[in-house]
């Protein structure tokens, strides 16, 4: 059983659907990347899972941790999960920290909540955590306010705060988007190191396929509130099957080989309230056919661990593995 199992999760704000049925599982210790344009529902997936969306959002589906349902669970069951089993860090670290509290206190708060630590013991642990995430001079910085630190330092504080509850999963929501490029690499390295040292799972949410592929072993590509393609990082690059994934790759500058003009995906994400008939990506898709505007494709397996939600995607043979027959037959059945 996967550590976190999200099934058919959908979120709507009034009449606008923000998530249209997400299925995603995160195994213990695994690093999963969640990629897509802004507004595609990457962050909402996890905010909804932890019950952090405003009350006007309608959330449906199921989110299980070790088999226990947490979606719509009472506070008493949800609060120990937040920060204790699943911790989350956010895009803008400076705004995500309370400006009027010292950082030591903010980290220590999580220690008190999830590990019952207070006073000197908590203080010592805060210093250890700050050391662990690479904040120099932790003994003195413990009394600093967020505005006295740089963006990168603040993100380290956020990470230390997340680690304080010894979570089994860290959800990093665009953790480097607001930071300098040089700092970005440091933070990503830190996340990788921490995952190796602590054994926690990582969900890295990003709009940058490059960032995610370096850090994660499995990638889920989201578009307009759905996961449109999911595969191990390597396979996503060798066999991108959804035209949207291919589009994202066309927008990545190649590291080697001839330089070419980067290809942008034409058009923009459809308005949530006005989803097109059929495939949500069809209006922007160069490979779209008439059927694409009629059939709303569901994710179907292409190989053992690769699936795509496109009616044109076909099962393929992997090196050392025969054509995934099971995939082929379930596809055929589902298409009918």
């Amino acid at each position: 059983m996967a550590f976190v199992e999200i099934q058919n999760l959908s979120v709507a704000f009034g009449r606008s659907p923000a998530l249209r049925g997400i299925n995603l599982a995160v195994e213990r210790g695994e690093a999963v990347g969640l990629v897509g344009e802004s507004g595609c529902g990457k962050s909402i997936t996890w905010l909804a899972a932890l019950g952090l969306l405003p009350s006007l959002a309608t959330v449906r589906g199921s989110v299980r941790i070790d088999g226990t349902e947490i979606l719509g669970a009472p506070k008493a069951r949800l609060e120990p999960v937040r920060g204790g089993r699943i911790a989350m860090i956010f895009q803008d670290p400076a705004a995500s920290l309370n400006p009027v509290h010292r950082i030591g206190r903010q980290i220590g708060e999580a220690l008190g909540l999830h590990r019952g630590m207070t006073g000197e013991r908590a203080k010592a642990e805060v210093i250890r955590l700050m050391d662990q995430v690479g904040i120099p001079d932790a003994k003195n910085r413990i009394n600093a306010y967020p505005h006295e630190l740089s963006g990168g330092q603040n993100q380290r504080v956020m990470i230390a705060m997340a680690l304080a509850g010894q979570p089994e999963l860290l959800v990093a929501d665009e953790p480097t988007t607001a930071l300098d490029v040089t700092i970005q690499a440091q933070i990503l390295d830190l996340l990788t190191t921490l995952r190796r040292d602590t054994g926690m799972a990582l969900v890295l949410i990003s709009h940058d396929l490059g960032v995610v592929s370096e850090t994660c072993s499995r990638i889920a590509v989201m578009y307009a509130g759905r996961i449109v393609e999911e595969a191990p990082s390597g396979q996503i690059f060798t066999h991108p099957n959804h035209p949207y994934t291919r589009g994202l790759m066309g927008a990545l500058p190649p590291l080697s080989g001839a330089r070419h003009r980067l290809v942008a995906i034409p058009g923009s994400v459809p308005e949530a309230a006005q989803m097109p008939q059929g495939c949500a990506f069809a209006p922007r898709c160069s490979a779209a056919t008439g059927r694409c505007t009629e059939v709303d494709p569901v994710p179907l397996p292409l190989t053992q661990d690769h699936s795509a939600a496109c009616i044109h995607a076909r099962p393929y043979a992997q090196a050392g593995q025969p054509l995934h027959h099971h995939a082929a037959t379930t596809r055929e059945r589902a298409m009918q």
Partner: protein
Amino acid sequence: MLHYLLSRLLRAAVSIIMVVTFVFVVLRMSGDPAMVIMGADAPPEAIDAFRKAWGLDQPLWIQYFSFFEAIFSGELGRSMRDGRDVLSVVLERVPSTLALTVPAFLVNLVVGVPAGVYAALHRNSLIDRCVMVMAVTGFAVPSFILAMLLVLIFSVNLGWLPSAGQDSWLNAILPIATMGFGGAALLARFTRSAMLEVLGQPYIRTASAKGLPWSAVVWRHALQNAAIPTITIIGFMLGGLVAGAVVVESVFSWPGVGRLLVISVANRDLGVVQAIVLMIAITMVAANMIVDVLYGLVDPRMHGQARPARR
């Protein structure tokens, strides 16, 4: 923090000097005081004598400095009505005014802030709507109309409370209610919007994501941040403690500073008006000073001692 305090203190001193200068300039520009006081048809010798007696024949800068000297030694002149020292005329009215404004201020705080916080936490609920309707009403209805309405209901129709004078503590109830309601409405509105602003901030989401119960999120993370803009409004109210009762004191014939101001303006008693204006200015500056100190206590970003912690 000390540096911060000193800089605020210096700023307050500069503000007061500017106000005093302003009063000096305005008084000189509003006509020759000798002509105003002696009358246009007074003999020239009498006017010259008056000028000499009050130092008006001196160069302007000497007048300016002696004006300062007089103010800082508490010599604000004499009332033209009864020849008494204006400072004592004004000061003897202050306790009466404070007897209204201080309780009203407490009502503002005790009613306005919790109402605003509650409304924000239960946004769009029935109580939120009620609070907002009350707040808009309190904000939109001028205090003299509210005052007369209260008199009509509680004095004229019901006969429960006296409508004017200062005979007993019962007389204070209606004026305090008038000011308390208006201020509480204003404060509730500001507190609500400050709270809503803060509740939408990413750090509130962080605090929830950390696993804090909602009550702790509100108490530890939202209130202190929402206090920052709210303190500004409270500061204005604090500054108005001495001056704020002009209208209400007049309606209820309450013998306070506000009513004295109205009477003195009507009687062209310039010395008294000048003293009251200065006193109001000083309380405003002092209130601002207190607000600045509170800012410093509540918001660490205000200390201005940007430690070079950036790397």
